[in-house]
């Protein structure tokens, strides 16, 4: 400052300028720091916000173009490629009271008017309830599934609050068909009950969900089976029915039905009660259908070498305080074919006694009766099976299907092994290509199997299976009518009627099981409850429907050769 006072006026002004310049530069430079700090803070805020978004948002989905083109969940088809379950984009009707964006009324018109308009579009709508929901102003679904045409009509109402979000949905184009095989997709997006649960990973994995999963089911056969089972069930007023069509050489399940069924398109409480699968999950004492298996075991073991050998059939067998009786008198003696044709417990028990419980148990175990059935479905019932050594009585009762309880699927696999030359194979719901069939294990000799084919055909021609003998289809099979166990013994009037069949017997290709749970005697069954009158006719009607689709054409000029057995039975030659 001293310099300023000492200087001349001119230099005073100049000096001042210099100081102002230096001062200004210094101020500017210092305040540049503020600007820098400001920008750095803003950039820091942006970076922090980015980090926050990165950590808070849901896990990033890796998305590829291929994935974007895939369905949200893979398709399931039958063996011929007909779709059984598919993903499709659907609309839902969602009420969003905040859609208008202001604090006024969420609707332009009154809730009653809007509800009336909606009722005109959806005739089954509960108008009063919807009007209440609209008036309450609470967000929620008004309807889960809306067709595109209906969506347009909802748009025309002109209410902003009625939103139509697109949602991918699971659709079962065949409705109830094969519901137990397919299962359904729950609200969490994962499958339940059937193959939807089994294939859940494959159907949702982007790498695999592009290719439809082929099941072994043939949709046409499945439809026919369900149709005939339902008809048979209604005719005799049964509480339930089960049926299965199995390829004897590969173990592929061509059709599998459990009635009453549920609707996978609409899961409700009534449907959930019916999700129980009678074919794979419920075990039954299947009665006389076990007799051919026992006889086959005896023939295979060399115990029965002469089919014309006669066994006494008049006296009930008394053993361990228990009497083995027949349902009606069948004469003094019966040979083996006659015993099967008339379904004699007494004779079968004698044969089993000669075979011995140990060998019978081994055969039954070889047929898979001691473990859960082999199939992909998650719900599989465990048989009632005595693990410890069988006594004489146990052997005798098992031989005619009591004292052992298995699922209908167990029986189907065992019959397949009996008729296909003696090889047991696990059942599968996946379509198998040529050469993919499992090797299986030998249970019976081929000669035993050939003999059993003759005997099964004899039953259908001369015995209790006559109602199943569809002309030209060479059906063979065995009836079984077992009393259901109740409190303290068997209940004499509640039966499980089963018909286990195979066709064509000259070269068996398919096993068919039809089972009715608690059939009543009605006019349609000639007031009978036994399988010959209710289950066998189902097979008799079913086989002509499914045979041609499965490549078995009716041919009256072909049949299995019965000439050596026919003289052994009354009514034969």
């Amino acid at each position, binding site marked *: 400052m001293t310099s300023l006072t000492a200087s001349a006026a001119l230099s005073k002004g100049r000096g001042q300028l210099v100081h102002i310049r230096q001062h200004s530069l*210094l*101020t*500017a430079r210092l305040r540049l720091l503020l600007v820098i700090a400001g920008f750095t803070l803003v*950039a820091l805020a942006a970076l922090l916000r980015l980090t926050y978004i990165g950590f808070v948002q849901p896990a990033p989905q890796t998305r590829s173009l291929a994935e974007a083109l895939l369905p949200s969940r893979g398709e399931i088809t039958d063996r011929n490629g007909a779709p059984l379950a598919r993903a499709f984009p659907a609309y839902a009707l969602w009420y969003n009271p905040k*859609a208008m964006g202001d604090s006024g009324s969420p609707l332009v018109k009154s809730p009653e008017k809007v509800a009336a308009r909606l009722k005109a579009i959806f005739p089954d709508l509960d108008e009063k309830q919807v009007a209440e929901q609209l008036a309450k102003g609470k967000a929620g679904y008004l309807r889960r599934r809306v067709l595109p045409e209906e969506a347009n009509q909802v748009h025309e109402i002109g209410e902003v609050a009625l939103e139509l979000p697109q949602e991918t949905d699971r659709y079962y184009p065949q409705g109830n068909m094969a519901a137990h095989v397919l299962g359904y997709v729950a609200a969490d997006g994962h499958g339940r009950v059937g193959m939807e649960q089994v294939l859940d990973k494959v159907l949702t994995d982007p790498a695999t969900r592009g290719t439809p999963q082929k099941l072994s089911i043939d949709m046409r056969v499945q439809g026919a089976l369900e149709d005939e089972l339902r008809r048979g069930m209604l005719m005799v007023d049964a509480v339930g029915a089960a049926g299965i069509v199995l390829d004897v050489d590969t173990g592929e399940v061509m059709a599998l039905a459990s009635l009453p069924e549920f609707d996978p398109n609409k899961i409700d409480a009534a449907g959930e009660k019916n999700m129980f699968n009678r074919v794979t999950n419920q075990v039954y004492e299947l009665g006389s259908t076990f007799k051919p298996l026992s006889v086959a075991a005896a023939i295979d073991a060399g115990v029965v070498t002469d089919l014309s050998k006669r066994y006494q059939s008049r006296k009930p067998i008394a053993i361990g305080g228990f009497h083995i009786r027949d349902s009606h008198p069948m004469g003094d003696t019966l040979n083996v074919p006659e015993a099967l044709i008339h379904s004699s417990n007494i004779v079968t028990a004698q044969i089993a006694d000669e075979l011995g419980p140990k060998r019978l148990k081994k055969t039954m175990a070889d047929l898979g009766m001691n473990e859960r059935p082999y199939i992909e479905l998650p719900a599989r019932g465990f048989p009632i099976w005595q693990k410890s050594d069988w006594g004489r009585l146990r052997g005798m009762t098992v031989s005619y299907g009591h004292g052992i309880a298995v699922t209908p699927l167990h029986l189907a696999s065992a019959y397949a092994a009996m008729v296909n030359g003696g090889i047991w194979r696990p059942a599968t719901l996946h379509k198998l290509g040529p050469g993919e069939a499992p090797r299986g294990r030998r249970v019976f000799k081929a000669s035993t199997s050939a003999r059993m084919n003759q005997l099964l055909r004899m039953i259908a021609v001369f015995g209790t299976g006559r109602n199943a003998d569809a002309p030209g289809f060479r059906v063979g099979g065995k009836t079984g009518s077992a009393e259901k166990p109740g409190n303290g013994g068997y209940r004499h009037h509640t039966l499980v009627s089963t018909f286990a069949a195979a066709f064509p017997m000259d070269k068996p290709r398919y096993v068919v099981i039809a089972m009715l749970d608690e059939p009543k005697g009605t006019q349609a069954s000639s007031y009978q409850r036994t399988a010959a009158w209710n289950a066998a006719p189902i097979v008799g009607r079913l086989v002509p429907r499914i045979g041609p689709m499965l490549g078995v054409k009716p041919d009256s000029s072909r049949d299995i050769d019965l000439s050596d057995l026919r003289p052994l039975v009354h009514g034969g030659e």
Partner: protein
Amino acid sequence: MTTARPYIPRAGEPSSARPKFPQNRKTMLKIWWREVDRVLLGLVLALMLIGSVAVAAASPASARRLSTSHTDLGDLYFFWYHLRWQFLAILVMLGVSMFPREWARRMSILLCAAMVLALFLVPFIGVEVNGAKRWLNFGIRFQPSEFLKPAFAIATAWILSWRMRDPNLPVIMISGALLTVVCAFMMMQPNLGDTILFVGCWLVMVMLAGLPMQGIVWLGGGGVALLATAYMFYDNARHRIDAFLGGGTAYDQVDLARRTLMAGGWTGSGLWLGIRKMSLPEAHTDYIFSVIGEEFGLLICGLVVLVYLAIVLRVLMRLFDEDDLFTILAASGLITLFGGQAFINILVNLQLFPSKGMTLPLVSYGGSSTIAQCFTIGLLLAVTRRNPFLSRAKFSLRGALEKRPAA
């Protein structure tokens, strides 16, 4: 403190014989290359490259949105146009950066006057786009405000640096008057975003020019009061601020932008694989940052933020050892416009700022805006050119703080 009088050039005094500019074009280029801020140039070109890719990513979304049954814009319609604009813009940037500082200043002052005149004309012969009258159409359509921004910064720096000649001039009042005129025109359009930019730019320059801290506080308070007034009497602003504070309605632009930005995760969905961007209006302009987020991921978003910060810091750091007040003011004003617009756009995309209708400079698609931004950068390069062989007084923070009380 008796000191020898330093040499002070006087106005009007013929300058001593200066070395003439070389007339040879080749040596001119050589000198330009030596003097220009090459780091800044590199950063800007890198940013423009990011912009090309980003516009390529966003182009299908906007092209499909704007296609009609009669005219089908190709998916890359905006990308090809953007490349053309960028090419022109780079020419403008390099051309302007070759101007000597005085020429750049004079040209900008003239341009400022011309653009204020153009702004005056906008209400009468302007073209209305998207509900705002901001464009003039002389063969090509352009926004006078885009070109006014850099010119305004230079002109204000020039006015403020008058104080070096005569400390008694009320330079802050004069520049404030200029600002008021410009802002009045801007609010007539209406264009709140650019108004905020002009005010912010002016505030930074006035602050650097030595406005007392008390005055800054007063101005800050005035700004808040002004925003409050705008909120109460200015529909456009009120709606946008309301939407920002209230979260908006279900599917407004901000919400769509948020969904787009969050759709990609850290690494993004990949080029042209984004889905959300398809439902985003203005994907190629205002919300291109969100599109970058979806297709290239949050990490690249962070990189973009850092590139902008690097450009801003590069310019500001170099000003510390600058000893010409006009240069400091002009450069800081220009970079405030550029960086301010960039960060406002980014913050809007990140839902930290109300929606402003502002593009991301040098990245967003735009004809006149890309050229104007490159013009800004060109001016910046021109005013910050310096002879690398002249050493300057180094700035030390401690020295500055010690000297301050004495001065």
